[in-house]
């Protein structure tokens, strides 16, 4: 499998990473060399094999329904690039 330049642009946009036109051929090469590297996996027989879902066999632990966190708007917004009245501010979003 190999990717074309349109796919590179699409992937970059999905990942929200700006790429210049000049970078595209290079990125395309890198992606294709990675895909080539993993190509051999296609021939591994995985018939009937369960995908790994938990590295150590154990049950999901559940927590009790108690409120014991939050109430720290000032701390939550302390590192914000732009904030006001404990809101995070971002460029206007249109729906």
């Amino acid at each position, binding site marked *: *499998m190999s*990717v074309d330049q349109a*796919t*590179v642009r699409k*992937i*970059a*946009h*999905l*990942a*929200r*990473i*700006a*790429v210049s036109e000049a970078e595209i051929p290079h*990125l395309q090469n*890198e*992606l294709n*060399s*990675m895909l080539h*590297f*993993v*190509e*051999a*996996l*296609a021939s*591994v027989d*995985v018939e009937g*094999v*369960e*995908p*790994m*879902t*938990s*590295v*150590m066999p*154990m049950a*999901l*632990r559940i*927590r009790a329904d108690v409120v014991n966190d939050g109430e*720290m708007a000032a*701390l*939550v*917004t*302390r*590192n*914000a*690039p*732009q904030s006001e009245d404990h809101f*995070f501010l*971002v*460029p*206007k*979003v*249109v729906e």
Partner: protein
Amino acid sequence: MTDLTHMTLAEARDALVAKKISARELTSAHIGAVEAARALNAFIVETPEQALAMADAADQRLGNGTHGPLEGIPLGIKDLYCTKDVQTTAGSHILEGFVPTYESTVTSQLWRDGAVMLGKLNLDEFAMGSSNETSHFGAVKSPWRRAGSNAALVPGGSSGGSAAAVAAHLCLGATATDTGGSIRQPAAFTGTVGIKPTYGRCSRWGIVAFASSLDQAGPIARNVRDSAILMRSMAGFDPKDSTSVDRPVPNYEEAIGQSIKGKTIGIPKEYRVDGMSPEIEALWQQGIAWLRDAGAKIVDISLPNTRHALPAYYIVAPAEASSNLARYDGVRYGLREQGRDIVEMYEKTRAAGFGKEVRRRIMIGTYVLSAGYYDAYYLRAQKIRTLIKRDFENAYAAGVDAILTPATPSAAFGIGEKVSADPIEMYLNDVFTVTVNMAGLPGIAVPAGLSSEGLPLGLQLIGRPFDEEGLFSMASVIEQSAPKTSLPQNWWA
């Protein structure tokens, strides 16, 4: 006291408790060493005032007998661990200036036990790398040099700052993390001991995530005993991490010196890879001989899916990373580049904030998860992981207690030597270590000798799940058997 930085962690601990030295003296000596070693670029942030304040508090507790097991021990912290009120960057421009309001579980356990923080250690950006050259804060130089050469060498990665700082005696031990070999490979490159414990043994809470199903915290120290001492404080159940395993933490130090007589060590034939250098092969044979001499039984084993581990890793790790790194979007913390609209803001921020290697991995991870490719790549890789794990389970079921392999395919290389080449050449550094992460097993790298160029080489022991104690006792056999090596002349201070 000639040089307090030349004590081992265990020696320093005992001297502190015996009040032969004070935590302030010990910490001051290390602060001096850190300041003198800036040429290594091992630290991103130094925290000398905090270190002295912590040392003074430690002296108080040592004075009144309320001290913990690490009281007064100066440590370096990989800058992937969030530290309250101290900048945490993950080696990335996108987190430059980020000051957590919280402390990671593992570091909070170290401070609970009395340890002292000297600062935050350099690393590959988001722990993605095997040479510490992808850090936004510059490459770390290994304190090691090839015999008769001044060429700067990599300390390995991603925990390169940790390995270099420990090797250069800037701290008595350091925290590190390992997703595909990031503790063991730099430990092997710098002649230090590094253990990646069983997945779930250390809490991941408060450690910047790279690939959640592979990441584990662990220590790097100058010998096996010191790493066992650190491991005890770092390990433990954390209800804030759903993948943390609830089982008691043993006193790992007690495993040091335990006889390994009657233990069965497996030698996997699949680790004899193409183009492996004869000196690595010789080192491996030497390790086998040492363990046999100590009474272990050596058996040949097969782990047939080994060769699939590295390619499968380079699907699973980038896929998880592409999702884990989505939160770095310029909204709540970290870098923001202005854009005309929200999408442009995201795209410019992430293009400027992430370095080349991180962007590359996010791209590949995004691709393998995207519509139409998930089954062929991610799902298949997770099935292959099951096969890899099964290989190990079969070996352990057949009576193998641990598996001995080389830690790396070569000794450390020069800074810049591999950066321009195909990234896959760099990825091959992890060929012996990734299998362990894929299966969630514990693995330890222990120094075993020097290369023909005078550089450290390490061996790796892979254990049964949660048998870190077994690894410590076997690793200490290798440590005792191996020739004593010493760092070259202190050229950095």
